[in-house]
């Protein structure tokens, strides 16, 4: 072989090796993926900002007319609104914020323990055959339309709550300090009824995510607890629950996110009382979402629609804040337990 040719071959070989190892090979694929990722991320954020912007701009005339801080009281009386006067502001929204918060909190107090319990039963205790049936059933629960829960609330739950309400009036209401939360009279449609309906509606979310979380507990941890002589419950307590803590908190907050915005079923059973705060859970109330659903189609008073948008804006902010808090808590717990989730 002539000398020149050998050199050429050698160079060709090195250059093809260089090609194989070249950054570009990997980068093209990675770059497409990274850009796609970035683009969809930006799109989501843009959409969110656009929504907030839209709601805020619809609310602006009312905010301008009355001033932001004048909305922080507890009386909502559209019929008293007039174009001419801006004081007093008839559109107070604090009772709706309170209603949203209390209904969601009670719903979570009921559904988190029940949901985690059901998820534990399905994933840790029940026989294999029953497992599938139960899982499907809980999933079906999620597929029931909101309005059907509302009907169920009216037809079944409200009458069924009567004895419970009677019990609260007669006993819990007498406890000094917290008694006010359980005072009568009870007319059926109530904060309590809305909370119970809501708790059932968020149950599938809590169950599904908790189950998912429990199934990620490594076999090693379970067997460590079993080998130490743990009973079924002790295995759950020492190996399953600690490992799942951050996931279960995440599940709860996702449920809460759903509860905050849930509209139709709540509107149907909460009583839609807009003139003040009922501290008693047996009383009637309204949430930010329910007042919007209830009044939007017939909002004909001055600044009525615009003020409903103010309520909508408050709901968005509340939901955002809860989601951010949830993320922070989950991230903290994940860091503390040494695993991301």
């Amino acid at each position: 072989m002539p000398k020149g040719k050998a050199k050429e071959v050698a160079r060709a070989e090195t250059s093809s090796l260089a090609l194989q190892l070249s950054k570009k090979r990997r980068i093209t694929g990675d770059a497409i993926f990274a850009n796609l990722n970035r683009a969809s991320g930006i799109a989501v954020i843009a959409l969110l900002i656009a929504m907030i912007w839209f709601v805020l701009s619809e609310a602006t005339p009312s905010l301008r007319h009355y001033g932001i801080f004048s909305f922080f009281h507890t009386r909502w009386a559209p019929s008293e609104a007039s174009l001419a006067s801006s004081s007093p502001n008839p559109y107070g929204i604090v009772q709706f914020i309170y209603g949203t918060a209390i209904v969601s909190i009670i719903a979570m107090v009921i559904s988190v323990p029940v949901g985690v319990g059901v998820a534990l039963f399905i994933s840790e205790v029940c026989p294999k055959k029953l497992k599938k049936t139960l899982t499907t059933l809980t999933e079906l629960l999620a597929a029931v339309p909101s309005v059907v829960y509302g009907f169920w609330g009216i037809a079944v739950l409200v009458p069924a709550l009567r004895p419970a309400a009677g019990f609260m009036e007669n006993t819990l209401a007498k406890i000094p300090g917290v008694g006010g939360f359980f005072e009568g009279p009870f007319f059926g449609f109530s904060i309590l009824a809305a909370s119970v309906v809501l708790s059932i509606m968020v149950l599938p979310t809590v169950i599904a995510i908790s189950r998912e979380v429990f199934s990620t507990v490594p076999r090693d941890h379970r067997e460590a607890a079993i080998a130490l002589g743990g009973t079924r419950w002790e295995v759950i307590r020492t190996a399953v629950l600690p490992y799942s803590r951050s996931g279960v908190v995440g599940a709860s907050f996702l449920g809460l996110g759903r509860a905050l915005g849930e509209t139709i079923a709540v509107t149907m059973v909460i009583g839609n009382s807009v003139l003040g705060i009922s501290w008693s859970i047996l009383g009637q109330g309204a949430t930010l979402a329910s007042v919007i659903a209830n009044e939007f189609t017939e909002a004909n008073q001055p600044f009525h629609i615009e003020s409903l948008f103010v309520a909508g804006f408050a709901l968005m902010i509340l939901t955002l804040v809860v989601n951010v808090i949830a993320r922070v808590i989950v991230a903290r717990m994940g860091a503390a337990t040494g695993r991301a989730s």
Partner: protein
Amino acid sequence: MKRVSVDAVSAYFGAHKAVEDVSMVIEPARVTALIGPSGCGKSTLIRTINRLHEVVPGARIEGTVHLDEIDIYGESIDPVLVRRQIGMVFQRPNPFPTMSIYDNVASGLRLNRVKNKDTLDSAVERSLKLAGLWDEVSSRLNNPGGGLSGGQQQRLCIARAIAVEPAVLLMDEPCSALDPISTLKIEDLIHELKERYTIVIVTHNMQQAARVSDVTAFFTIAGAGEPGRLIEMDETSKIFTNPGDERTEAYVTGRFG
């Protein structure tokens, strides 16, 4: 310290027979090593001794296992209480990751309803010292167990297992995920523990078996899908220098497996 008698044990995973007809007597105050090629059923057999085999769905055994004169598979026996008598250390370190170092070691005692703080404190200190971990962790007992190195985690698991003073200690390849120094520490520990416990150790490391054990049992499988069988069991020195079966000789001299 108790004697473990395995009698005609066969272990199944569903229809698959993983171990066939194993009989052996494991003497107290001695270290018994189980050796053999991968898949020959060493882990499966060791897990029949603390009734951990049966927690795998579909798994079951035939035959009996006695702890001294008690049949641990007897009608009236609670497997949970059997496991409290028999400690186990797994191949992969598995401390409870969110629990503190202290709570990890105390977890077995707490399962046994020990609540007294002084008792727990002294048991934790004694176990960690025995496991050779005390000096490294005594200043941070409240840190999570998941934050230790692999070797430290394994010694933490040993401390957890011995904290309840079990009659028998089962170790399934306790050093396979560890560096040579951690391995030596654990081997030293086994020597110390031998006086108080009946120890069974599974190992793939021939030198380790030779170093730590008094008695060695050799298992093998005839082929894929076949069950594992006990070929022979004898004094370790005999197994490594003058085994009775040529399959054993082939394995310990490295010509097989």
